[in-house]
């Protein structure tokens, strides 16, 4: 340890963490109960005690790019035992939000995603894109947007054509990946630098091939929610989270199959209910709604936990995706084609929101936490 350390507090960072749900950080008196209470905190340089003091001192450089912040699964065991009500779990959650905002470019979008007042603007963007692009195509004679199609058995593609949807969604999806890639590049470099500085690793450099191999090794841990299940306080969250994660994976597979079917084999929907892909779609959709409701219920039940807009945004998105998706299908099967199309439009907005804003929202944890857990394993942190 250095004999002296000049603290240069970044007050705006403290305020940012407070805004994102870490309002109780200043109550911490560094007793270190949290680091012991945490079932997954390692023995050397354990968290979250050191993150608590770094946050209250505004030491942004020790938090952004600190992989430990992502090892936390927000189970809340630390907050339960905390003698001061400083809520370390919520503080780490807020630091993670600040990290996402920090690495996402352009930063202005990240600021908007974390601000409830900007939600209407964020929702208007996909609505405008779909309508304007559809109308533009109409002008040049491509009829991908119909407000009053006629026919006996209509489905959503008769209103908003699947090709129109795909040419909007695919670039959005790819750009999200690009934004993630740029953020990750900085994140991994910072995380490694932080680990070297705090003596959390003995690896000098990161070998990409070894890192990829470690990722494969870590994947089952993530899928099985092994870390999540070590929590004692908040165990039921694990089930809800697992349902939502697997629903997303299921729906991603369904969407990919449908996409290939359409673009490669020119198979048009809607698929029959006996089609296995349809089964997967329906099961995943139902699980997504149930998982979302459970997440919502857990948050509402846990009164001692802070839930900020950052958290509500994601739960809201999960529920909107699930409910609009399932309603679209149910209304279509019921023959209410017009109403189904309106709901489908809302569904498309939420899908676009999912793709476009993921690198800027809480959902970005799917990437950051996975990478941080892989790095923990790779770096030999114990």
């Amino acid at each position, binding site marked *: *340890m250095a004999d002296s350390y000049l603290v240069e507090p970044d007050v705006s960072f403290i305020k940012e963490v407070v805004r994102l749900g870490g309002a109780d950080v200043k109550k911490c*008196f*560094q*007793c*270190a*109960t*949290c*680091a*012991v*209470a945490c079932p997954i*905190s*390692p*023995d*050397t*340089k*354990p968290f979250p*005690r*050191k993150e608590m003091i770094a946050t209250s001192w505004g030491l942004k450089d020790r938090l952004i790019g600190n992989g430990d912040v992502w090892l936390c699964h927000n189970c809340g065991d630390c907050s339960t*035992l*905390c*003698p*001061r*009500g400083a809520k370390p779990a919520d503080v780490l959650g807020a630091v993670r939000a600040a990290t996402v905002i920090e690495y996402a470019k352009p930063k202005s979008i990240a600021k908007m995603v974390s601000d409830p007042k900007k939600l209407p603007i964020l929702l208007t963007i996909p609505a405008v894109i779909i309508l304007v692009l559809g109308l533009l195509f109409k002008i040049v004679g491509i009829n991908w947007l119909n407000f009053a199609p006629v026919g006996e058995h209509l489905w959503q593609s008769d209103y908003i054509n699947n090709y129109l949807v795909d040419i909007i969604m695919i670039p959005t999806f790819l750009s999200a990946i690009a934004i993630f890639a740029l953020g990750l590049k900085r994140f991994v470099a910072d995380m490694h630098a932080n680990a070297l500085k*705090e003596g959390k690793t003995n690896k000098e450099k990161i070998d990409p091939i070894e890192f990829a191999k470690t990722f494969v090794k870590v994947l089952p841990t993530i899928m099985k929610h092994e870390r999540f299940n070590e929590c004692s306080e908040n165990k039921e969250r694990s089930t809800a989270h697992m349902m939502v994660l697997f629903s997303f994976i299921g729906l991603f597979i369904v969407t990919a199959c449908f996409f290939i079917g359409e673009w490669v084999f020119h198979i048009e929907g809607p698929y029959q209910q006996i089609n296995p892909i349809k089964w997967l779609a329906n099961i995943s959709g139902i699980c997504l709604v149930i998982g979302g409701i459970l997440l919502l219920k857990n948050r509402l039940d846990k009164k001692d936990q802070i839930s900020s807009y950052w958290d509500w945004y994601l739960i809201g998105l999960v529920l909107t995706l699930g409910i609009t998706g399932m309603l679209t299908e149910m209304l279509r099967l019921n023959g209410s084609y017009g109403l189904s199309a309106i709901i489908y439009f809302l569904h498309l907005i939420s899908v676009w929101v999912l793709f476009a804003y993921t690198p800027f929202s809480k959902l970005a944890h799917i990437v950051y936490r996975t990478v941080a857990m892989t790095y923990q394993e790779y770096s030999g942190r114990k």
Partner: protein
Amino acid sequence: MTNDKAAPASGSMMVVGGGIAGLTTALEAAEVGYEVLLVEKNPYLGGRVAQLNQYFPKLCPPTCGLEINFRRIKDNPRIKVLTLAEVEAVSGGPGNYTATVKILPRYVNENCTCCGDCAKVCETEVSDTYNLGMCRTKGAYLPFDMAFPARYVISPQIIGTDDAEKVKTACKYDAVDVDMQPKTVDFSVGAIVWATGWEPYDAHRIDNLGFGQYDNIITNMMLERQAAKNGPTQGQIVRPSDKKAPESVAFVQCAGSRDENHLPYCSYICCMASLKHATYIRAQYPDTKVYIFYIDIRSPGDRYEKFYNTIKQDPGVILIKGKVAEVSEDPATRNITVVAENAVTGEKIHQTVDMVVLATGMQPTAAGAKPPADLAMNDDGFFINDYAKGGMFAAGCANKPADVISSNQNATGIALKAIQTLVKR
């Protein structure tokens, strides 16, 4: 110059609680001429202080000071002491209270010479509350060697049994009276001082620290009794599971104190108590290692700071900044492993020791049993003195957690406040 030198003895006051603060208030008021009724629920005076082995930081026995106080009480006709007595109701206002006091029978009258013949014949054993239930005592007992009043007590548990008859027959002085009945008496007093003191916080309530779950985890007051010559182990510090001399002891500071889930405040004395306990252990076992896990060591003032610095010099005492939040027991050795993060080095410590002492704090007695009077209290059960209203005041640890010297200073001041109420009338 006034020539009215006579004290306005028309007024008298009641002091509730015969611990160190109550004794001081009673004596200070009586020695300037006021009548004092001292009401104590135990069969003896001295309270928590009577249970201590040594005072910090001088490491001298409290019996010495208590003895002086008892002498002063004996010599002062203005103090009337009621033991086994509790206040049941208070009515009236400043200068004119009526206190209803219930006095439980001691079954032993003033003829008692403390010969001990009654205890010899008594077969029934009862829990020894003076020793915090760590051992048992005879149904006819002297609470401790230098108990005041120096008179045996007969436990209500043996009344009506053969033992009661045996005890009565054994007494050569006709001191045993098994027919004594509880009585309720009204007293008129001008002022009341509540010196109701404190209870050790119930360590069972601290789930993550294993008290009651593992034998070799004890509390600081239990260690105090162990270290005392008149305690359950005759002064030998041993671990409960096998009565073995511990080769290592860990102290868990702030066990239930400074904790919103338990007592939100600092109990003030536990740091100094644990440092003192380290001296007990180190003096008895020169090779035993003592680990003290703390959030901050609070040793306020010059003398306490010096004491802390002296203990720090001892290589056998290891102070670690980091609160213990997890304990476990090895079922084979019955050793305890405590887990804490050393906040200075940022490393987790898993320290295995023979015995763990929880430095539990003070909970005001009034938090469990609110006195039957119109008194203001805060959420934690400490009294809030209303000096403008007057009449009733709290002294000592009923006000706030305090060491003996602060309690006595406070009690002296409160004696004056009570006197002012009497004089105003």
